[in-house]
């Protein structure tokens, strides 16, 4: 599968880098707080191989994605992704967002339902309560390259990886400035604005031992939004999820998309 890189301008001040692979209906994947699009590498490859065009935008500040100003709010984050879907055409797209990327996904599905055939939110933290101070400190420590590796691994195990899963890979690829800009953008948008994630079918991939995104919140979300929402629990996974169970996540995405966004023909 060939991976190509594309630059998509948004106005005069923003350029967005997009990784593209595969041919077929559009699937967009959005990474977590302060993390690059490459977090989805194995999942994107498996989905593309099944007959989809997978687009992975790099957040502003990562790779060749640049902007004069940081995001104003979550609507601004979502508008970046809308610009990309429109630039590639052939929408609507299925959009999958991991952790912070889940909020961008839900915001996009709320603001631009015309561009969306379905969404998946992975390790979504739909709860309203903010993370506690110990958790926020662990996230900061995980992303801080100036700290000793042992300290960071301990933080990664606490916040991101289930017992027995190797967190070493996540010592790399953190962008603390992007993380801060995303957190600011997220905090500017009240959670009720993106909560329901529009009206399209929604696959909720919930890690079984995630200290940030709780199983109970997924169940409440399902009760509130009904049949639109399918909840699947990812076994033996925490908040990082993608490196912990890439095969499982790819297969669940494909099984769900087979119903709401099938490969092999226009969606």
């Amino acid at each position, binding site marked *: 599968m060939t991976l190509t890189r594309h630059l998509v301008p948004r106005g005069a001040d923003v350029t967005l880098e997009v990784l593209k692979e595969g041919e077929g209906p559009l699937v967009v994947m959005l990474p977590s707080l302060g993390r690059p699009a490459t977090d989805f590498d194995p999942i994107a490859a498996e989905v593309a191989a099944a007959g989809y065009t997978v687009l992975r935008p790099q957040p502003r500040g990562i790779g060749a994605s640049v902007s004069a100003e940081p995001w104003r709010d979550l609507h601004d984050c979502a508008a970046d992704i809308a610009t990309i879907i429109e630039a590639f055409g052939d929408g609507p797209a299925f959009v999958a967002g991991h952790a912070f990327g889940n909020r961008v996904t839900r915001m996009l599905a709320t603001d631009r339902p015309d561009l969306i055939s379905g969404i998946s939110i992975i390790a979504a933290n739909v709860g309203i309560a903010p993370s506690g101070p110990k958790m926020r400190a662990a996230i900061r420590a995980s992303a801080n390259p100036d700290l000793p590796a042992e300290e960071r691994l301990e933080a990664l195990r606490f916040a991101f990886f*289930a*017992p*027995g*899963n190797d967190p070493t890979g996540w010592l790399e690829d953190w962008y603390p400035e992007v993380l801060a800009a995303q957190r600011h953008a997220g905090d500017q948008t009240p959670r009720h604005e993106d909560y329901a994630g529009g009206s399209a079918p929604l696959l909720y991939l919930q890690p*079984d031992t995630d200290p940030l995104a709780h199983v109970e919140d997924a169940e409440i979300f399902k009760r509130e939004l009904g049949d639109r929402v*399918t909840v*699947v*629990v990812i*076994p*033996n996974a925490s908040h990082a999820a993608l490196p912990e*169970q890439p*095969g*499982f996540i790819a*297969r*669940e995405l494909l*099984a*769900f998309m*087979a*119903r709401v966004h099938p490969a092999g023909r226009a969606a």
Partner: protein
Amino acid sequence: MTDLRWTEHQGVSLHYKLSGEGRSLVLIHELSGTSDSWDEVIAKLAPGYRILRADQRGTGLSEKVRTPFSIADMAADTAAIIRAAQLPPPYTIAGIASGAAIAVALAALLGGSVESLLLCSPALKANPERRGYLLGRAATAREEGMRAVVDLVFERSYPQSAITDQHVHDEYRARFLAIDPVCYEMANHMLADVDVSAEMAGLACPVLVLAGSKDLLRPVAHVEADIAPIPDRRLEVVKSGHIMILQAPEAVASALSGLYQASGEKA
């Protein structure tokens, strides 16, 4: 008392049964079977287990699907059923024939919450020489029904020499004739492609393997070669044909009890 229940995963209705109280035990049936295939073993098992057994998609009282599936789908189905059944970890997982491959894939998914694994007459790796046979019998079944292949299948899986209880054999044959031929064909395609070598290599728990001395489909030498990637493995030979859980249920029940004694804990 056995409790019959259903849950949905990937848009497929899945049936499962729960019985007993005690340690969590998950039983996974073979390609030509249903959850009932474990009846004889359960009847001979000492009390002290919370037993979960499901009908795989396409079998028993689970939905008769019309889209292909893989060992990984079966493992994910089982993980979803464990969750729906609220079966608490740690788990012992036992699988027979193709069910052994599902057990291995499930153990890889569940990671550290699996304490031991029992593989009976395991079909862990496709035998290229048998591919034509599997796909041929599957096509015949789809076109002409199960009765057209029952004798061909039983002369290898359940020959006269392997019958220890005529009534058990006759019931199994009757259940075989009730299989949905379309799902049977897809299950044969799954088996023709099976290879869980990578998952075997990553298993962290002890694995007991039972091979049948009279197994015409998975002879002892083949089993021994197939299980080589498993780090912590023990092979025992049981006087049985391929469908060991019906042909030598005492040996399987005794092996299950032995697993707990081996781990130094009381059943």
